[in-house]
């Protein structure tokens, strides 16, 4: 056997073994992921459905002055660090205290991405990285965001943050990256896993306030749909006609 034939034989054997190994490595995590999914969870390859529209109801009358449990929970859940630079630190949810100009009535409330049906951030994004899932959740695709910040110019709620620095110690379910824009994901990883809640709503409930309710706006029997039917609520900047997924009560 010539030297060349020997090399070809080794090459074939090596490629064959490498192919088997690659297939094995690729299959293991997939099967383990499928096995660990909960009964209500959406499979990873299952697309979001327009049969649902995830939304949030904030009851400002129940939101406690001085409490920022929702903010802390969001920061913990998504690994948002306070770097002591408030002008550039990412804030996905914030507490705002407002006073009625005419009556002097004071309200305090959490403010975050309003998950608009016709989201200005989605319209202006040049690459389509800013996108709205079929179930109404507005997200940023971190693989195609080029960091132009046009979405931040367009958002009427100042809901988005730009990652101004190198990030370390990220949480695995929420990959982030320097130079990309980000905002509230409505805890999409929890909703997809079947939790039916977000970190902020759980924290608010744990404090006993229950000011934040998450649910499916298209399910007439969901708690959020019943509450929205029962009491008057409002959208922020309703004049823009964006049909927000986040509604406020008691304002």
């Amino acid at each position: 056997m010539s030297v060349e034939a020997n090399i070809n034989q080794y090459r074939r054997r090596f490629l064959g073994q490498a192919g088997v190994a690659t297939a094995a490595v690729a299959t293991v995590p997939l099967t383990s992921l499928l096995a660990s999914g909960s009964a209500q969870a959406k499979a990873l390859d299952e697309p979001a459905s327009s049969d649902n529209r995830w939304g949030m109801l904030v009851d400002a009358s129940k939101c406690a002055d001085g409490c920022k449990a929702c903010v802390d929970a969001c920061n913990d859940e998504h690994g948002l660090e306070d770097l002591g630079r408030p002008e550039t630190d990412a804030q996905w949810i914030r507490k705002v205290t407002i006073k009625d100009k005419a009556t002097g009535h004071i309200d305090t409330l959490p403010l975050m991405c309003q998950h608009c049906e016709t989201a200005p951030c989605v319209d202006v994004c040049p690459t389509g990285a800013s996108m709205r899932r079929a179930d109404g959740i507005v997200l940023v695709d971190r693989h195609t965001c080029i960091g132009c910040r046009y979405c931040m110019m367009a958002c009427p709620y100042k809901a988005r943050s730009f990652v101004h620095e190198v990030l370390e110690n990220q949480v695995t379910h929420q990959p982030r990256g320097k130079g990309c824009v980000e905002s509230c994901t409505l805890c999409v990883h929890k909703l997809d896993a079947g939790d039916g809640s977000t970190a902020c709503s759980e924290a608010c409930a744990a404090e006993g306030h229950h000011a934040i309710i998450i649910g499916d706006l298209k399910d007439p029997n969901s708690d959020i749909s019943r509450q929205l039917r029962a009491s008057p609520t409002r959208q922020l900047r309703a004049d823009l006609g964006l049909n927000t997924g986040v509604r406020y009560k008691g304002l």
Partner: protein
Amino acid sequence: MATQTHYRSLMGPSPGFYKLMAGLIAVIMLGMGAAYYMEHNGHWVTGMTNQIVWGMPHVFAIFLIVAASGALNVASISSVFGRKMYDPLARLSALLAIALLIGGLMVLLLDLGRPDRLIIAMTYYNFKSIFAWNIILYSGFVGIVAVYIWTMMEHKMHVFKKAAGTAAFIWRLMLTTGTGSIFGFLVARQGYDAAIMAPMFIIMSFSFGLAIYILTLMASFNWTDRPLGDAVLLRLKSLLGVFVAAVLYFVIVQHVTNLYATEHHAVERFILVDGGIYTFLFWAGTILVGGLLPLAVVYHPTLGKSRQWIGIACAMVIAGGMATIYVIVIGGQAFPLPIFPDKEIIESSFFDGVVGSYTPSLPEILLGIGGVAVSAAVVAVAAKVLPFLPESLSDEVVDASVS
């Protein structure tokens, strides 16, 4: 019988040219270094924040891109509107248009959070986004103007000159409409959200582009010892006067129409009365330095005939133009978003309801100036190797070519 215009590249060894290039390359390297510093550390080292998301790089980039389309006007007057006198000026006009656009785009690209993802910007399009349209408009502009230059330089292509010039003219109007619409369509911010932004950007481009063109023409002819007569220069400076006046008109219309609606009184008060640096830049920059003073100079019976003063008027138009773009881009962001129009925000951790603060950082300014240097270097190198500049624009030559 009109005589043929002779064009000549910058021939022979020229220490002046190499000194100019060395200077420009040094400035470009500083700009590249600044971009690397910002990308390596992240944007927290700049003056830009989550409140003021577009800063000094965008002021430079938008100014250069707006001026780019305006720089093409001289060529359009020649090819599209058939004014013979402008024929010898057309090649430099088209070259300057491409050069300014390249400089502006470079600044815009290097300020992205992820400039390494340029290929994504070129391959993923959201056609509802004005930014995406602009990517196509900008690349198309470079291509069409390059073809236009070819039709001007290649004798066999002359028959297509008018067609290419017309296509470039229409394309440049679309391009500036697109640039103005970046702001005009932002309904969320009260400083923008006005359809007048698109035509206002077009008229600003006429003015800024022509000012840069006149300065480039004077400098290149001076440095290469080519005669430049009064006939051309005085015609161009009078045209500049018309454009400057038109910009003032649009600025007045923009603010007066805004003042008609009560909901815009607060933002107008911010820009016109108590907005600090933005109010100062509006009145001192846009109105005085960029408007009234250059108008006074170009129409002054003696100053308007002085080359030095015409140059100063052009520089004032450019300085005023930068101030105008600064007030639009930064001032429009600094004014707080009306998230709760009927409420007063008394507490927020995210600077809601307060005027955003912004101080341009050195790297941002260096990147912007680097873009200007790129534009200048493109013009210098192109004029060195290709016949862009006429041998003479003396009054006798111009008279002979027009008659």
